[in-house]
């Protein structure tokens, strides 16, 4: 697996990131490095190894379906630059 310059530009666009030429080069270098590592790991023989989902062996950590109201809207909205009628105010979206 490898990654191209075009893919870096595409991913940056999807992530709403503006990269300078130098940053594109640097990101490309770092990404290739990560993929190289993954390629090496991929070569390990995993026959008879238990397939895990995620980084720990824990599973089925659930919550009961019981209501707990947070109850403080003001504090939830308090960091917003602008608010109106109990809502976050943002630039117009169609």
């Amino acid at each position, binding site marked *: 697996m490898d990654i191209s310059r075009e893919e870096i530009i*595409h*991913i940056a*666009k*999807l992530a*709403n990131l503006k990269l300078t030429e130098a940053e594109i080069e640097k990101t490309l270098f770092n990404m290739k490095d990560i993929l190289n590592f993954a390629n090496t790991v991929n070569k390990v023989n995993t026959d008879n190894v238990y397939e*895990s*989902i*995620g*980084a*720990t062996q*824990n*599973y*089925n*950590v*659930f*919550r*009961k*379906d*019981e*209501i*707990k*109201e*947070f109850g403080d*809207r003001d504090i*939830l*909205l308090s960091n917003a630059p*602008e608010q*109106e*009628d*109990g*809502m*976050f*105010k*943002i*630039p*117009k*979206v169609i």
Partner: protein
Amino acid sequence: MSREDYEIVMGLEVHAELSTKTKIFCSCPTEFGGEPNTHCCPICMAMPGTLPVLNEKVVEYAIKAGIATNCEIAKNSKNDRKNYFYPDLPKAYQISQYDMPLCERGYVEIETEEGKKKIRLTRIHIEEDAGKLNHDEYGRGSLVDLNRAGVPLIEIVSEPDLRSSKEVESYLRKLKSILEYIEVSDCKMQEGSLRADVNVSVRKKGATEYGTRTEMKNMNSFRSIVRAIEYEADRQIDVIENGGKIEQETLRWDDVSGRTFPMRDKEDAQDYRYFPDPDLLAIKMSDEYVEEIRRNLPELPESRKKRYIEEIGLPEYDANLLTASKYLSNLFEGASAICNNPKAVSNWIMTDITKELNERELEPDQIPFTAEQLGNLVVLIDKGTISSSIAKKVLVELFENPKDPMKIVEEKGWIQISDEGAIKEVVLKVLENNQQSVADYKAGKDKALGFLVGQAMKETKGKANPGMLNKMFLEELNK
């Protein structure tokens, strides 16, 4: 070439809000409505450092839906992040499921003119709903309400097995009815708790490859779904007939103009860069757990239908209509239990109640009266307290201002006159005022009797017992 030379091919993505008490990853209530941002907490508002914990009922409800639609239930499953930017999605990713959904490979059976047809389901997965954008008074900005953000959804994805808007409607009605019966969603289209996106393509009849498809969103009633499909199929056929090509894109249906419009930023729309959510742990389902859910699943429409036909002796058509909605079916069973006359209850539902629903443009879940009230109405007819023509008026009252039918009848003075003396009085009066009809009857014109009974009914404002009237007129005339 004309429309008849083409075949429409459709698959559906149906979103149903689950009727759990709390959201999928936090303990906020899912209740509809409420002041903006009052059903929210730091988790569903995506404050940095907060962590989601999966609601166990969401897994249970999704598995219920999977079992009821003949799906295979996964032994291992997980949650993934679907990444995109939109102001109603505070984390800038939606927690959904990508390659290991809870349920796969199911089917739902629908009735078509050519008989039963299986619509295959690709998968059912769990995910969270987004918030809502409102517009401010002056149109200068948008206002974000996150009450719906984090409400649990199941997405039910079908294979492209649907061939007409009629089939789509039957499929949706069937899904809605199943989800209602197993009580995992209240499926209120008007509140957005059941929504469908339709993938539409057309191809020449006999073709083996699918055409390019478009995805339509924003239809919020059965009627608008049917209209949108008809419009979009016509549009695609038109484009092809004029030598054009269909572009794969997402379209928004506009109910007012009756047209579809392309939604913007389509080129990157499909690139969601899914990856496993590292904040959540694997889901494993044991056979025992799944079996337990299967054992406790409420009775499904197919089984109720069979019971109505075999045990009560209803025609298949009637049993189909009654079981199409849990609300109708419960109304039928509840009312029958009270009056012990299921055939009469079925008749009321099939005729007058269906007619009222159509005229008032109501769905069965919006019926304002109770099964008990309908049962009591049938009791009043069976006891001879009211005639069936008065009963029709009582039914209209039940839609307008529901209360116990006996109360309605008393307040309106609609009780049937079955008192012999009172009826005789009316009969004698009518005979005296209609000498010509009496003469006609005696001359052999049987129709005159009908006229006389009609006059007596008019005289009593429809309240006289028609059987007694008939009998008494005959007695008097044949004296």
